[in-house]
């Protein structure tokens, strides 16, 4: 369905891709929840409600794509860190390939539309 509502449009585009953004963030290093949320929030349009990232993290953990551990913090209580699992890394590979193809295809079509 084509919609002119920017919020809905972004939500549709976010759906299905944000999990992989989280996995990609965890590939470089383990991160705690607030840290993940902060990076995603700073990326324009990826997160509208910061609090909704936590259920997503829980789902990734339940799916075995990430696991967690607690680490003491010098700035307050212990933090729960998220670490990508082997299954998570494997899930990221096809997404990267397909996303690139998909993005290029969309870019191509959008460019043609301007010709």
């Amino acid at each position: 369905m084509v919609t002119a509502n920017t919020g809905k449009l972004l939500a549709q585009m976010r759906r299905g891709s944000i999990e992989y953004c989280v996995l990609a963030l965890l590939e470089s290093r383990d991160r705690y929840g607030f840290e993940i949320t902060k990076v995603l929030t700073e990326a324009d349009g990826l997160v509208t409600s910061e609090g909704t990232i936590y259920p997503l993290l829980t789902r990734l953990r339940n799916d075995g794509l990430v696991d967690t551990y607690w680490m003491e913090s010098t700035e307050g209580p212990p933090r729960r860190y998220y670490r990508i699992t082997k299954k998570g890394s494997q899930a990221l590979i096809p997404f990267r390939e397909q996303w690139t193809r998909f993005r290029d295809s969309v870019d191509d079509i959008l460019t043609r539309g301007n010709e």
Partner: protein
Amino acid sequence: MTVRTPHPDAAERFIEQLRRKLRHARRTDRDDYIAQIADHIRESRADDDANDPGTLDALLIRIGEPSVLAKAFYAAERVKLNEAQRVLLWVRRWWIGLVLAAVLVAGVSFLVWASTYQPLSLRSSGEYSDSVVALSGKAPMKLTQGNLQPAAWKLTEGHYRLSILFPVDNLNSLAVNIAPPQIVQGFPLPESWHLESNDSEKQGPFKSVLVKGQTYREIVFSTSYVCKAWPTGNPNASSFSSQTITNIPIVMSFWGFQHTLEVSIQPFTLEIAGDCFGE
């Protein structure tokens, strides 16, 4: 995990609202999520160095409405819930519970109504003087004089027909069925019936008959017996069996619900001096 913030009212109100929105969630999952949100508030405040209420409000807006967070939480939960748990979660929503309760009450009320629905006005004609006739053999002997009640008939040897006129009035608008009654215990169901007012509608063998809404039907139940006198020397030769009929059990059915209506009739007695059986 309890988190204290410099502005406990707004943050705690927010957490409390979220807790209310998640009240149907599994406790451990809910507490875990709320702890994460509380940590997030604490970390954000430390990161922003924002201690004034205006910044806290902005932070809470960034985190999202409790209803939005609850929706995201339940959406993630559903992924790992089995079907039964999903149904339970669905049913736990108060308005669905209310609707289900209303449907249940309506359903039970309907069942009670349908199982007690009885629109028939039943009465017997009371005219039995001609209701026992001999088709062959010896005529039935009337043992009572005039209108003395109950009328008594003695059947000795022959082929007899017992007929009972039965008017049925359906006072309401919904149709009901009536099934053949067992007029005399020990004898078969009526072998035929017909509408008294219209001989062309004679039917047999007896099947259940539909009495439409706000209609009146006169039905005659007929059954015949063959009686043989006891042979000479039979120890029963001098005895007879007697049966007084005071009512007829009419089985009425409505949408699968059955009622047996005991309809009083003008009593009559059959005295059988022999061995009788349904034809």
